């Protein structure tokens, strides 16, 4: 049983609505059944399952796309799977764009050379756009929201639920949007990546996070330091000086490793004292 392309998972959220403003030219709906799309969507959550330094996401892309390709004639099906299992890299949450677009290209019988060229061209944008929006934008924002709840005295269950709830609304919606827009647009998916969420979202999230961080940092530190409030001024001074050093020499030293080294010295001092 076949029917036109269906939308996988929830399609609410900023990413989904913003996508409507960046419509590609709709092609002829490729015949796909709901189960194949739902399976591909579910598999997207494991797209990095065999991530490695040689093919990176390559095998994962073929693994996610496989249910969508089952309607191809046998020799085309195997050739498509072989093509899609080669080197590929993208942000995992936007891998659905590649899976959908490339599957659509294969189902529409596009020239394999064109598919491979498109596949190569897609790696960079899907990586950089996703890294900036999710890892450098959405994730720190959600962390700060949850830390804000902690700072205001929320309990363990509330803090965890707030963090996971807020973060995954965006996460699940972005994956669903990616697969949907990929399947709909095929090899004409590029304009969708120029929508406002991707263009302006990272900067907007950075500005909101800057305010939020300034607001919650003193409150969160106060809850952590507890009875040591008398040293709050010293802590703040150390933090400012340390942050400047880290920001200045950040390329050469990661903060958590530096913290581990300093903590090791402190633990040693506390034991031998």
């Amino acid at each position, binding site marked *: 049983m076949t029917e036109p392309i269906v939308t996988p998972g929830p399609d609410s959220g900023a990413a989904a609505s913003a996508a409507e403003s960046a419509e590609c030219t709709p092609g002829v709906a490729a015949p796909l059944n709901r189960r194949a799309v739902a399976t591909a969507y579910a598999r997207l*959550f*494991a797209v*990095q*399952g*065999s*991530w*490695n*330094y040689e093919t990176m996401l390559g*095998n994962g892309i*073929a*693994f996610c796309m496989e249910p969508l390709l089952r309607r191809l004639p046998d020799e085309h099906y*195997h*050739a498509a*799977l*072989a093509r899609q*299992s080669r080197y590929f*890299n993208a942000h995992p*949450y936007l891998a659905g764009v590649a899976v959908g677009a490339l599957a659509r290209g294969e189902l529409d019988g596009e020239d394999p050379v064109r598919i491979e060229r498109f596949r190569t061209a897609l790696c960079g944008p899907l990586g950089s756009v996703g*890294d900036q929006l999710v890892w450098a934008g959405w994730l720190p924002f959600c*962390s700060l929201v949850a*830390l804000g709840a*902690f700072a205001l005295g929320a*309990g363990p269950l509330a*803090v965890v639920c707030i963090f*996971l709830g807020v973060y*995954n609304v965006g*996460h699940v919606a972005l994956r669903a949007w990616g697969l949907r827009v990929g399947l709909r647009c095929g090899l004409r998916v590029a304009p969708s990546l120029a929508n406002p969420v991707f263009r302006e979202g990272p900067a907007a999230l*950075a*500005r909101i996070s800057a*305010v939020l*961080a*300034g*607001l919650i*940092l*003193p409150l*969160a*530190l106060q809850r*952590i*330091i507890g009875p*040591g409030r008398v040293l709050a001024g010293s*802590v703040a001074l*150390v*933090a400012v000086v*340390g*942050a400047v050093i*880290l*920001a200045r020499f950040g390329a050469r030293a990661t*903060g*958590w490793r*530096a913290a*581990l080294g*300093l*903590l*090791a010295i*402190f*633990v040693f*001092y*506390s*034991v031998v*004292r």
Partner: protein
Amino acid sequence: MITESLLLSLIPMSLLGAVAGLDMVSFPQIMLSRPLVSSTIAGAFVGRPGSGLLLGAVLELIALETLPFGASRYAEWGTAGVVGGAVMAGQPAGSAGTLPVAMFVALATAMFSSSSMVWLRTWNAHEARRVRAAIDAGSPGVIAGVQLRGLTTDLIRGFVVTFVALLILFPLSQEVVAVWGVDAVHSRAVVTALAATVAAGAIWTLTHRAARAGWLFVLGLCAGTALLLLQ
């Protein structure tokens, strides 16, 4: 006794570490691996979620720095949060050294676990190379097999890292906390200063490219300090 219950729960705790470690990269990336979550759940396993949350918040401030970009090497916070949360919640309440020792244990685990991820990725490449011919022939069974083996190996990696870290570091942390020689006020101040330093550096790195972000941070800082003084 908390200690006995923790030792008895070494297997379930390692399973929790396995799930949290798997979530970091392989499946499903819903951020169970963030220390705020993994440390709190580990604390809940020991019966003290509040202690787990306190350490989780400290580690989350440090984890703001972690940007898991592609092939870069970064801390694996899933297992680290579980081990740190278990150590934090497993110590006697009110001990001065509990928070710094738990933080040290978590960061040490993160370093070890980060290396284990490099090993896993090398192993995944080896596995894919081993069946390259079948993959190049477009065999769906082989492609799914490579994926499932990668997921399983990552699950085992998380279990082993958590199990070994707890087995070695939990008894050690008890010994260290027992002979801790710095008072609670200064111990917490050191932890807070380190977390604040890394967090502030991370926030600067994340936001400074946006226009007026520096001023917005200062604005927020003034509001936060005012709220603090009003409390």
